[in-house]
C-alpha cells in the first residue's frame, strides 16, 4: 500500500512533521484521544527519534502499530486505536 492509500483510509491524519521531540508523541496522544476504538490514525513525523519513540509510545498505550513507512526524511506511522 502506498502512502496516499494509507492516508486516504485513515480516520485521522496527524501531521507532526517538522516538530522536535517530544511533540510527535504529544500530538499522537492528542489525536488518538479523539478516535473510537478500532479507528486508524496516521501520524506523520520527521523527527528521527520518532522512529523509535512512536513504537515505544504504542508499547506503553493500548494501541497497535500497524505499519511504518519511511522515506524522504519522513516517517508515516499507522496506529490502530486499542
Amino acid at each position, binding site marked *: 500500500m502506498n502512502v496516499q492509500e494509507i492516508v486516504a483510509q485513515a480516520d485521522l491524519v496527524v501531521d507532526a512533521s517538522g516538530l*522536535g*521531540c*517530544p511533540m510527535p508523541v504529544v500530538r499522537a*496522544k492528542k489525536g488518538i484521544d479523539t478516535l473510537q476504538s478500532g479507528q486508524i490514525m496516521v501520524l506523520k513525523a520527521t523527527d528521527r527519534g520518532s522512529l523509535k519513540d512512536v513504537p515505544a509510545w504504542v508499547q506503553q498505550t493500548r494501541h497497535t502499530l500497524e505499519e511504518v513507512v519511511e522515506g524522504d526524511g519522513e516517517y508515516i506511522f499507522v496506529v490502530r486505536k486499542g
Partner: protein
Amino acid sequence: MAKRVAIIASGGGLETAYKTFNIALAGAAMDAEVAIFFTFEGLPIVHKQGPSMLKLKPENEPMAEGFARTNVPPIDQLIQAAKESGIRLIACQMTVDALGWKADDFIDGVEFAGAATFLDYAMEAQVTLNF
C-alpha cells in the same frame, strides 16, 4: 496500578526547563500521571516572567541554534502543552517564601506545596527523576 512519573526540577537555566518538560510531556502522552515539583533554581520555570528569566548556561549557548533548527518548541508552548496534558505543576512553597515571591507571580494552574506533598505523590510512582 496507574502509571505515575514524579519529577523534581531543581536545576537552573533554560536547559532544566527543556529536560523537565520533554520527559514530562512524553510521560503524559504515554498515559502516565505526571507531577513536577519546582524548587530552588528550578522555581523560575513556572514564574510568569520565566521565559525572560531563563537563559541557557554560557557553555550551552551553541545549543540555541540547534534548538531552533530542530524546531524544539519555546518553553511557554511546552508549559501550555503540559497544562493541556493534565500535568501537575507544584511550586515549592518554602522556596517561594524564601525568595519573597507571591502566588500571583506564577502562571495559572500552579499548586503550592512542600516536600511531603511531593513525596506522598512520589511514593506511588514507578519513575522518579531529578533535573
